[in-house]
């Protein structure tokens, strides 16, 4: 069985009386795209910085591809590409100088062809790399930071808010790039608060709330947890109330010619309840996973 890409056990980080991360457990398999969600200040960046040994935990430990993040930090970071959530780049450097500097810090030399390919994918041509960073827009800086994280082609990518500041077209390109990385067996651990993005590209998600893991689920499981809205219309007035519905069925509104329900799970029980009634139409509105996650954000889903 392959080693997990990321394994965390009871990670805890306190700043004085403030607990940023508490007893955080996580396992990310190799080759998956994993979404790490949380509101601002929930502990996402702290957790990432603990994994990279930039912060030292008060208790607990973490390993990346079987290597302890603290004791074997150098090895861990040789296997990792990191995109920080926010970084103030030196304005007097050119984009190329920054990439070259960070490339020289890697154990293996950077493959120029691969870097050029990344530049093309993320639309940051050579002429832009020759410009000083003070002339860069927020989006260009983000692209540059993405390229520096990816340029060593490491087996694990830890990306903190990767699409923040990117235009929709580059976001598309970036998502395609993520799928390509996954096909090549790379693992991507990305934090975000853009739910639609996470739901679209990630296979599993973890949601951190006030430093604690509030939810760990696959996107498929999320779909099961999400409530679909069902609207049943009748061709004649119906006076009976639906009977025998399991607790996953929430009746929102009952009118003589219309039932409005929220359903989590399969619709079989509803079909049985409608037997013999003058059903005119059944309108099923797909679940929005964002609503599930928002419930967890709001601490209703715990």
């Amino acid at each position, binding site marked *: 069985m392959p080693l997990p890409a990321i394994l965390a056990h009871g990670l805890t980080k306190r700043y004085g009386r403030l607990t940023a991360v508490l007893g955080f457990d996580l396992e990310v398999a190799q080759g998956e795209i994993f979404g790490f969600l949380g509101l601002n200040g929930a502990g996402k960046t702290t957790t990432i910085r603990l994994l*990279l040994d930039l912060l030292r935990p008060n208790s607990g430990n973490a390993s990346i591809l079987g290597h302890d993040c603290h004791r074997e930090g150098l090895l861990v*970071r040789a296997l990792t590409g990191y995109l920080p959530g926010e970084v103030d780049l030196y304005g007097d450097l050119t984009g190329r100088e920054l990439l070259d500097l960070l490339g*020289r*810090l890697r154990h293996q030399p950077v493959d120029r062809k691969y870097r050029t390919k990344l530049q093309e994918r993320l639309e940051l041509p050579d002429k832009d790399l020759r410009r000083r960073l003070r002339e860069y827009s927020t989006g260009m800086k983000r692209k540059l930071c993405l390229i520096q994280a990816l340029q060593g082609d490491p087996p694990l990518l830890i990306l903190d808010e990767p699409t923040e500041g990117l235009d929709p077209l580059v976001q598309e390109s970036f998502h395609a790039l993520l799928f390509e990385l996954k096909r090549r067996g790379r693992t991507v651990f990305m934090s975000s608060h853009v739910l639609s993005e996470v739901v679209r590209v990630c296979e599993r998600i973890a949601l951190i709330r006030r430093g604690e893991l509030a939810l760990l689920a696959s996107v498929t499981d999320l779909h099961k947890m999400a409530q679909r809205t069902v609207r049943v219309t009748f061709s004649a007035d119906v006076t009976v109330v639906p009977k025998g519905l399991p607790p996953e069925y929430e009746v929102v509104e009952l009118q003589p010619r219309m039932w409005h329900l929220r359903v989590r799970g399969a619709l079989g029980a509803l079909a049985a309840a409608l037997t013999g009634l003058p059903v005119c139409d059944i309108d099923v509105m797909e679940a929005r996973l964002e609503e599930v996650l928002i419930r967890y954000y709001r601490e209703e889903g715990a």
Partner: protein
Amino acid sequence: MKSGLALFVHSARRARTLILTVAALLVLFQVLLTLGAESLQKATSFPRLAALIPDVFRQVLGPSLLTMLSFSGIACLGYFHVAVLAVLVGLMIALGTEPAGEAETRFLDLVLAHPVARHWVITRTIALLVTCAALLAGAMMLGSGLGLYYLVSSDLARAAFRPVPKLSLNLAVLMVGWGGIALAMATTVHRRSVAAARTALLAAAFYMVDLIAQVWKPLKPLARYSPFHYYNALSVITGSGNASSDIIILACVACASFLLAYIIFQYRDL
């Protein structure tokens, strides 16, 4: 080693304009001082200058006043002039606090997310401090040498150059010492301005303590803790002091600061 060198080259490239400008100004300043000293010497103005000094200052400054108002004293004025010292120590503080600046901008996150051992960040800064101090002290020595050997070129001038190498070494070690203190300070905070301001205040306070202790004896025990106490330029010029032990003490201050910086930086959160 490769990553340490890459970081050093990066920092040196960013600081080179400032360092080279200061070095050029110091060369020029030293040449001008030498020419000024020659002019005063030719006009036999030194005794007249000494006569203009009020008695109270003459008593306070003692024999060092005569040294200051001599050909050697004026030619070497740059080595103990408060403005020059402020510029040199200020520059070392600016270089020494680089790790705090990098932590503040999160550039360190980018660097240390790569397979770079933390100690390279400190080693890089130490290498930069030592290189810069050597370059600036060397520039001053070059300025003195140019002025004394090529522009004045008399036996007196050659005699005046004799203490310059030791003076430059003592000054360089003082600079490295303050750079080390700034570096140690920088490893304890997340903001460069805080580290720089604290070190600058400390330097100003220690300079004043050392200065006042020369005229007010109760401060003398405290002055021993000031790095400036171990840089007595006038004693080096007259050859009366023990510059070698001062240099060793300042080197120890620098090494202790470096060690402290290594230890704190190794265990701190970034």
